[in-house]
């Protein structure tokens, strides 16, 4: 097999990333934004979103596809933040308290999600997607009914006008920048939230270390072939549950990092956006539903946010309407998820056909980028 770089094969393997990069490069001059403005915004948005996207890596390695049920973890993070804001615990301590409250909830939700996904093998992504909606209902019951009635709300700014339930939009001024401003470095007019970058770096090291542990290797084995893993003595179901639990915990922390940067929380809808964005970002970064790495996260987050920054203004210049530009960003975002999923399914089918042809003695070329079939 030749090791020479093949441009056509490279583009074929990374078609999603190439399309996104091309769109961004086209949009930048039309947007008429300065490079400094784009870079400044990218740094801030990267610090805000990267943690959430990292939460998707482990379930992909374990063969469970995109964990759309990370919404459950995001919900747990939001519950922690509601309490931190209600109890008026501010700054980094508020974020720490929110994390400590949210993590046990996310462990339970992750365990529950893992149990359900084990009963839906081969259909993890759509099951996770619907689980997210199910959790929405439970969360709204908690936020609108239990809070204020069973769980007292101490602060008026958290409650609805009638005193029952958490209000739809919650200001997070008390914890805003609690992590970003912990350590901040200013170089010229560009400000770097070093505190958040340190946390992201620790997470990267954790993922690198985790993949080398026995549990990490078990997850990889389960992701490649569950039957062989089971025969080798790996507890397949337990490993899958652990992958989802860790992913949900990371989603909880990621949502807290995201919201402390934003400074504002749409109580009943913010958690849904977490899943869509993270899925789009990791797929844009070159990951598939069966293979993901840290680099996919970095590339994906930068590319998706570059498009979000430039497209509305580019749309305004091209179509004389910023709304069309915003619409195009969302359309491309969700279109990418669809395209990546369809490409993955198509590649798997081609590889299966090639394998069958090979068994019959024919020489049909398989697509090199395809991974194991999702079980």
């Amino acid at each position, binding site marked *: 097999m030749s090791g020479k770089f093949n441009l056509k094969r490279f583009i074929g393997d990374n078609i999603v990333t190439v399309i996104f990069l091309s769109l961004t490069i086209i949009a930048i001059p039309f947007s008429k934004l300065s490079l400094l403005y784009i870079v400044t915004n990218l740094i801030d948005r990267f610090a805000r979103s990267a943690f959430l996207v990292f939460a998707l890596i482990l379930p992909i390695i374990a063969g469970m596809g995109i964990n759309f049920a990370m919404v459950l973890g995001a919900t747990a993070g939001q519950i922690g933040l509601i309490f931190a804001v209600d109890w008026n*615990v*501010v*700054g980094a*301590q*508020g974020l*720490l*308290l929110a994390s400590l*409250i949210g993590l046990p909830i996310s462990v339970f939700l992750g365990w529950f999600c893992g149990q359900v996904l084990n009963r839906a093998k081969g259909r993890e992504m759509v099951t996770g997607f619907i689980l997210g909606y199910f959790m929405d209902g439970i969360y709204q019951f908690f936020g609108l009914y239990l809070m204020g009635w069973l769980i007292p709300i*101490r602060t008026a700014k958290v409650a609805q006008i009638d005193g029952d339930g958490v209000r739809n939009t919650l200001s997070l001024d008390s914890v805003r920048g609690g992590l970003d401003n912990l350590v901040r470095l200013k170089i010229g007019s560009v400000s770097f939230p070093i505190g958040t970058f340190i946390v992201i770096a620790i997470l990267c090291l954790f993922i690198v270390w985790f993949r080398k542990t026995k549990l990490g290797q078990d997850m990889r084995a389960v992701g490649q072939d569950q039957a062989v893993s089971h025969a080798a003595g790996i507890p397949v179901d337990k490993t899958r549950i652990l992958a989802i639990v860790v992913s949900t915990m990371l989603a909880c922390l990621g949502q807290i990092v995201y919201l402390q940067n934003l400074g504002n929380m749409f109580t009943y809808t913010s958690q849904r956006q977490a899943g869509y964005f993270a899925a789009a970002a990791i797929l844009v970064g070159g990951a598939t539903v069966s293979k993901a790495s840290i680099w996919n996260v970095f590339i994906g987050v930068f590319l998706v946010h570059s498009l979000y920054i430039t497209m509305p203004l580019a749309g305004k210049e091209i179509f004389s309407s910023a709304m069309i530009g915003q619409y195009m960003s969302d359309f491309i975002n969700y279109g990418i998820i669809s395209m990546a999923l369809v490409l993955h399914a198509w590649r798997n089918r081609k590889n299966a056909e090639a394998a069958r042809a090979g068994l019959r003695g024919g020489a049909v070329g398989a697509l090199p980028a395809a991974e194991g079939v999702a079980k």
Partner: protein
Amino acid sequence: MIKRKLVARSILAVVYIGIGVLAFVTGRSHKVFLDNPKDASAYVSFSVDGQKPIRVRPNGCRVMEAKGPSHHLKIEFEDGTAPIETHFHITPFTDAVLFSVAALNQGAPPHPQIVPGDTEEH
């Protein structure tokens, strides 16, 4: 073996809860009101924990946020009266406290009045 696991997990749980309690106590924000009486002769400026001072007019009441359990209060008078400096403590479950300039001027000990309920700045 099981007993050792149980002990280890119990210790971890206690440490976990302890960190949460520490975060709550050190991160809890309180409102510190300062009341300048009606018959005061001058504006006063007050500052909690070295923050930027706030001016309070006669017959006025202003508020400053303070984070954590223990604080330093400094009151300066614009008519040249000697400033007042004091340390005070707020329990974690107290939302707001009130200092009266009149009471402090009369030599009252620096024990703030606890203001009940959710408060708005006057």
